[in-house]
């Protein structure tokens, strides 16, 4: 690994390809949106696509691929862990809906 960090990229052509792929994912997202799925299914689909998209972007655009694996293995678990922990609020959120006192 040289001083320049991610010195050896694969060149612009490849990045253009990634860029096109990302646009395609966005396109798929919009198409899925108009399949009139029930909200929860739609959410699952959109999240999956969003994570895929974000993953590709981080991996290639943000050059994670070209850094040492150690970097990915330090950042990713931390983020996943924290976000996973935040999920503790959902059981509460759903209960909230059932305990609502007034119409508003």
């Amino acid at each position, binding site marked *: 690994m040289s001083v320049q960090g991610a010195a050896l990229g694969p060149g612009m052509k490849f990045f253009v390809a990634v860029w096109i792929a990302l646009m395609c994912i966005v396109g798929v997202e919009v198409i899925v949106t108009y399949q009139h799925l029930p909200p929860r299914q739609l959410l699952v689909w959109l999240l999956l696509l969003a994570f895929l998209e974000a993953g590709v972007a981080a991996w290639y655009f943000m050059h994670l691929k070209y850094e040492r694996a150690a970097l990915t293995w330090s950042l990713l678990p931390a983020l996943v862990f*924290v976000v996973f922990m935040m999920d503790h609020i959902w059981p509460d959120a759903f209960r*909230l809906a059932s305990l609502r006192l007034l119409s508003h």
Partner: protein
Amino acid sequence: MSEAAAHPAVHQHTAPTGFIRKYVFSVDHKIIGLQYYGLALVAVFVGMVLSWLMRIHLGWATFAIPGLHLLSSTGAPGNVMTPEYYLSLMTMHGTIMVFFVLTNAPFSGFGNYFLPIQVGAPDMAFPRMNMMSFWVTLVAFLVLMASFFVSDGPTIAGWTVYAPLSAVGKDAGPGLAMGQNLWAVAIAIFCVGQLLGSLNFIATTLDLRTKGMSLLRLPFSTWAWFITSVIGLLAFAVLLPACVLLILDRTAGTSFFIPGGLVVSDHLQPHTGGSPLLWQHLFWFFGHPEVYIAILPAIGIVSHILPAFMRKPLLGPRVIVGCMVAIGFLSYMVWGHHMFVSGMNPFSALLFSVPTLIITIPATIATLLWIGSVYGAKLRFTSASLFCLGFISVFISGGISGFFLAQPSIDTYLHATYFVVAHFHFVMAVAAIFAIFAGTYFWMPKMIGRMMNETLGQIHFWITFVGVYCIFMPMHYLGLAGNVRRYAAFTDDFLVPLIPVHQFITIAALVTGAAQFIFLFNLIWTRFRGPKAPDNPWNATSLEWSTTSPPPFDNFGGRQLVVHHEAYEYGVAGSAGDYVMQTSPEVVKPQ
């Protein structure tokens, strides 16, 4: 953040001349560390005086405190504290102590001063950002203090500022107009300062270690500061948006934390649809890691100081680091134990209770390792080592009561009683403060180049040690008797008989508080009259002791240190002397 992008790691190696650049807007991590320490010192005495006033009011509710009206004429007509003013003082006490003392002194203060030195770096990775983080923190402190001087006084919502009390504005009571705004703004600013600091700590620890300073050779204190900065990086990132949303609720009419149909002092509030529990979730998601942001550096500092006075390494050094990491991890899995009876889903309570109980395991391991390390040691009793031992004792006392509060079934009785007050004061406040004292007596010779007075230090220790037990032990009994906290006075039938206990606590608090002025005097006297300190007064091994006291601008006078040893090689068999400095090239024969 483009700061970091724009100027990665600029290092001047020539000291700036001129007072302003050198002492005020200094990029030198040592000056910044002292600035943080000074800020914490101011804050801790402010917070302590507030607690005095509160204690006096709790003991003798009608007692007129001379001159109290100077602090607030509306809050203390005829020098007798009003209930709302009591709540203001309580809120400010909590906020000041948690944010500006327990976070600033052991983490930002000592950390800034000693982390770069302990890793053998000439400075922090981003000196400018470092300076910025201090000045941002100072601004936060000033904004918070300003709320003492606004018309309706500081907020009365408690340091957790639960919505909607904190969100609906002036209708809810005094202090909830401008005072609450200032609180939210101050804490938001504070978060920014901490984030900048954390980035700096992480980069410095990972990137600026001198040759031979492998991660496993880092002193416990450095480990603690590193882990703490990682926790802070992720925790304050949640409090920041939470504060912003709170500010929006208060000023822009949003309803994140305010449900519909509230009638506060006969005004139907215009908000609809929010959830008070959302604030609690966001706040405690930060709030619990914050507890460990306060205590982990303390654990690191004590583990760092003890060996020097035991003349032997701690048992299982790797295990202790492991415990700190484990505690850091678990700190994100338990925030809901602050919300057992908050109306949160009772299922979640069980979910949160288990990891909370599990945290006691690494904590117990660390404690046992300290105790076991004392066995067969040759203890030297100085103020520093006494405060370390005191730390272990209060850490046990505070940790034990965690067993009770971690269980929802018991918490439903003990929640919001003085049992909780006793618990977190012991394990978080007193323990961390003891570590700060230990650190001060241990490091001050290095920081200001003069030895502190031992006699005064030990008097200070004995009064403080006995004092804190007299203050906080009785609070457990009060809690078990169902004495509710955050009451400005005790008028309920079942509380009146308990007032004598409160009076005892108040006297203890006044005495213990007074003893802190011995410490202050000692500090000031040392600064100007104290005897010059040698480079290594305690025959300690880590890098800060292999430079002059105080260190030169670039810490090691241009020398490029090489580390040959673990951080705590005391009484090494096969070594000529009693201890081996990390930098000493001596080859120790393995036995």
